[in-house]
């Protein structure tokens, strides 16, 4: 086939590409600014990053309703993309706000930090927006590389570097599988474009083609690694624990969301035909993921690690929604992703505030008696924990209701029962945090709180939204439904 000339871009397309362009430009700008020495405490990187994120969000939001497949579907602008672009921009912005003071405190206040943050965001957006395995792969790699570095950003610290090493080695290993899977899919269908793949599969008699199946499985495994699904989850606790707290928050929310975005695109656009093949597989993975995540979290004393396992468990809940499939399942997944990102970022935001200078105070013991000295911070943390545990009136509850509801509707009762029982188990360790804060007296010198306006702003934002979506979830629900509609 002869390469045909690309269709010219109309104005809307430029707005649609605005995020990509802005983020790339922002990254480079920050790097360029690094050439000019700044005073140690400067936060120009943060400012530029914030502006970039705002700009990209705004430009995409302007054309939120148009649907444009660009570059032959290598970048598709639809409601789905818009939803995730906005989500990622929000996540990025919150992460920037949290980092603002944290990076100063921990002496990693280089412009590169923010540059990489933006690059990672760009990668996420690509994963969500691309309708072609090539760009999915590139976006994934872009995000991953940036994250590898961010995880190891406190290079003076062994735990940070070790985390980076593990994350990198396993990440590369996993992307090897992913790549091979893509290769097989390509071989089986003759294309890497999801849309064409679907078309091909829709009228091809041999869905049972082993290459197809293996390819699909390897791809699932590859994304499973990114979203930290059992048994591809084992990097998560170590990476989360070693990474700078703000980075942990960012990746726990963003990377997972991006992974699910890509997974949804692949499964719902390209491979709906194989549904009866990947449904059971995913159900088992979901059950394993929920159970292993929650059970392993029970005994954790380091909050970052505990939240890592909890994020694994939440991946499990999300997989339930994916298994439920269809618009409902997709919408539920989107809704839950948004909610999850908010509350998780919030929790990490609180953790990022704890401790003086370089020190990290993120164990249960460190939180002891927090409620007496910092009642409001403790209250915020409590609400995030309850939300993660799915207790009303918080967003987490609504998310669970919606996810499990769609699953019930899809007739996945056993899966749902496992899920709700898991959420009971999870409540145990979330409560342990409140126990520490409210019912224990601190041993040793009590933890200090490094108050900083931006971080507080971030916490307030996440807190407000967590509560608001818990009380009034309607708007977000509608958005999620509209977004998934754009996909199908």
């Amino acid at each position, binding site marked *: 086939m002869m390469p045909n000339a690309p269709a010219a871009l109309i104005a809307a397309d430029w707005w649609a590409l605005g995020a990509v362009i802005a983020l790339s430009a922002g990254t480079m700008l920050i790097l360029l600014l690094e050439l000019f020495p700044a005073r140690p405490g400067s936060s120009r990187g943060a400012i530029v990053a914030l502006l970039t994120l705002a700009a990209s969000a705004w430009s995409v939001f302007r054309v939120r309703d148009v649907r444009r497949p660009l570059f032959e579907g290598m970048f598709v602008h639809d409601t789905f993309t818009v939803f995730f672009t906005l989500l990622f921009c929000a996540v990025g912005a919150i992460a920037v706000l949290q980092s603002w003071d944290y990076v100063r405190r921990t002496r990693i206040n280089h412009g590169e930090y923010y540059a990489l943050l933006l690059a990672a965001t760009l990668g996420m957006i690509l994963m969500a927006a691309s309708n072609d395995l090539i760009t999915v792969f590139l976006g994934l790699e872009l995000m991953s590389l940036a994250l590898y570095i961010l995880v190891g950003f406190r290079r003076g610290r062994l735990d940070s570097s070790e985390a980076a090493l593990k994350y990198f080695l396993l990440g590369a290993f996993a992307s090897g599988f992913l790549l091979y899977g893509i290769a097989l899919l390509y071989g089986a269908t003759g294309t890497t474009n999801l849309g064409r793949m679907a078309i091909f599969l829709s009228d091809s008699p041999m869905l049972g083609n082993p290459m197809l199946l293996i390819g699909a499985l390897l791809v699932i495994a590859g994304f499973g690694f990114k979203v930290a699904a059992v048994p591809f989850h084992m990097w998560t606790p170590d990476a989360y624990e070693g990474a700078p707290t703000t980075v942990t928050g960012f990746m726990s929310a963003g990377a997972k969301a991006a992974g699910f975005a890509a997974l949804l695109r692949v499964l719902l656009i390209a491979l709906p035909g194989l549904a009866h093949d990947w449904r059971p597989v995913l159900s088992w993975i979901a059950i394993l993921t929920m159970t292993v995540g929650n059970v392993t979290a029970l005994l954790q004393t380091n909050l970052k690690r505990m939240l890592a396992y909890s994020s694994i468990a939440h991946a499990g809940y999300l997989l339930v929604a994916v298994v439920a499939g269809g618009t409902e399942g997709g919408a539920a997944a989107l809704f839950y992703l948004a909610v999850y990102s908010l509350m998780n970022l919030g929790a990490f935001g609180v953790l990022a505030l704890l401790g003086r200078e370089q020190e990290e105070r993120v164990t249960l013991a460190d939180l002891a008696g927090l409620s007496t000295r910092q009642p409001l911070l403790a209250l915020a943390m409590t609400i995030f924990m309850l939300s993660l545990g799915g207790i009303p009136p918080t967003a987490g509850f609504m998310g669970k209701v919606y996810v499990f509801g769609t699953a*019930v509707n899809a007739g996945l009762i056993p899966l749902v029962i496992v899920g709700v029982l898991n959420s009971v188990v999870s409540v145990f360790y979330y409560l342990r945090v409140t126990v520490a804060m409210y*019912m224990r007296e601190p041993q040793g010198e009590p933890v200090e709180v490094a108050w900083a306006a931006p971080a507080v702003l971030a916490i307030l934002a996440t807190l407000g939204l967590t509560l608001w979506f818990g009380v009034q979830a309607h708007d977000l629900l509608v958005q999620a439904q509209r977004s998934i509609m754009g996909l199908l």
Partner: protein
Amino acid sequence: MNGFPWLSWLIFFPLLSAALIAMLPKASGRTIRWLATAAALAEMAFSLPLWWRYQPGQPGWQFAEQMAWIPSLGATYHVGVDGVSVLLALLTTVLTPIVVISAWSAVEKREREFYAMLLALEAGMLGTFFALDLLLFYVFWEAMLIPMYLLIGVWGGPRRVYAAIKFFLYTMAGSVLMLVAILWLYFHNQAVTGVPTFALDAFYALPLAAAEQTWLFLAFALAFAIKVPMFPLHTWLPDAHVEAPTAGSVILAAVLLKMGTFGYVRFAMPLFPSASAQFTPWIVALALVGILYGALVAMVQPDLKKLVAYSSVSHLGFCMLGLYALNPQGMAGGMMTMLNHGVSTGALFLLVGVIYERRHTRMIADFGGLWKPAPVYATVFLIVTLSSIGLPGTNGFVGEFLVLLGAFRTNPGWAIIAAVGVILSALYMLWMYQRMFFGPVTHPENEQVRDLTTRERLVFAPLLLLIFWMGVYPQPILDRTQPTLDRTLALVKARVEMAPVALDANARPPAPAGGRP
């Protein structure tokens, strides 16, 4: 009937005042106490219309309010009361101020949070009673756990953390399955009627196959049975009661446990009539076991609070028995027993709290001969004790008798077994009373025990009043519950034919007085 949204106001006023108190800048304990008391009393005042303006005659929802909540799910903010919930709500609003006042001297640390929690808890409980939308109901039902959890965990006794977490997890473990059932109902209803809604009325009208009912019923019943608590799901109760601060124990016993029985009346029975009919023998069996078991175990408790806790197990067994007698007397009796238990056991916990404040022990063995130093206290305690063992003339009797009457008409055997519980209750209560108040003063510390203070007398006066009023002239209460219970009964009976029930256990010659309806 009246424009003003009483119920919403009742739900949100305590919430607001809780927020206010919590946000209060470092204020002295005095001001906080007074504020909390004022709020609670105001709340009680606001709740009075529920008594006056309620039309006893009609069974349907009253004071109903409805507005959109989550249109995309069809969930609405729909509240209202019927004869059952209105009384439980009043019980709540009446007890809260009492509890607040009683806590004045009991709570030293972090008073702001304490009173805020109490008021928030009140809001949660009222919401649970008022909600007519299952999602809304569930939200309140779960949200309620948080303040209670903190009350136990922060202001509780030595093993408070264990007790608090146990309470939370145990209750939640039961409720999540109910959530699944609710969701299933929701989608089933949507499939049948095409209307997405969580409205209770819609589900009442929803026809369900027997098999479906069985599972749904089990899910609901488990949640409520844990809350009641029914044997053998009761073990969270003693721990929670023993560790909770007095105020917590009172609310827990007086209102939270009623959530379970209320759930049966409001949801489990009318929603899944044939299933509940089918499971009647099991539930009654558990109720009977609970009655005897609770009584027997209570008898040997060395700790006052534990004793009262186990007696609760026994009393709530009576409630369940009455409800599942599935006839007017039984259900009315169950309802009365709920209220009685609320008043009497609440008072008992308050009394235990009083003596605990003075002596910092709850061990019966540490007391004895208390009548001499504290005659008033002893008298109040005696009256409450008598009401809790169901002496005629006190509230306890009315409930117990009606329960037994109803049970007997359904199946005499049940009533006979349950009546044994009546003997046992006298046994353990009076034994406890004797060991505490009679005989010589064995411990010198008890010589100087202070008698009830004026504040405490004010706390107990209304309770004693209720005890006698409900015992001597319960008709107004019965008149209010009657139509609602009849409707529930009708809903249950409507499709009971689908499954055999023990209703006709005693085939008796037609009584001239007409017998059962």
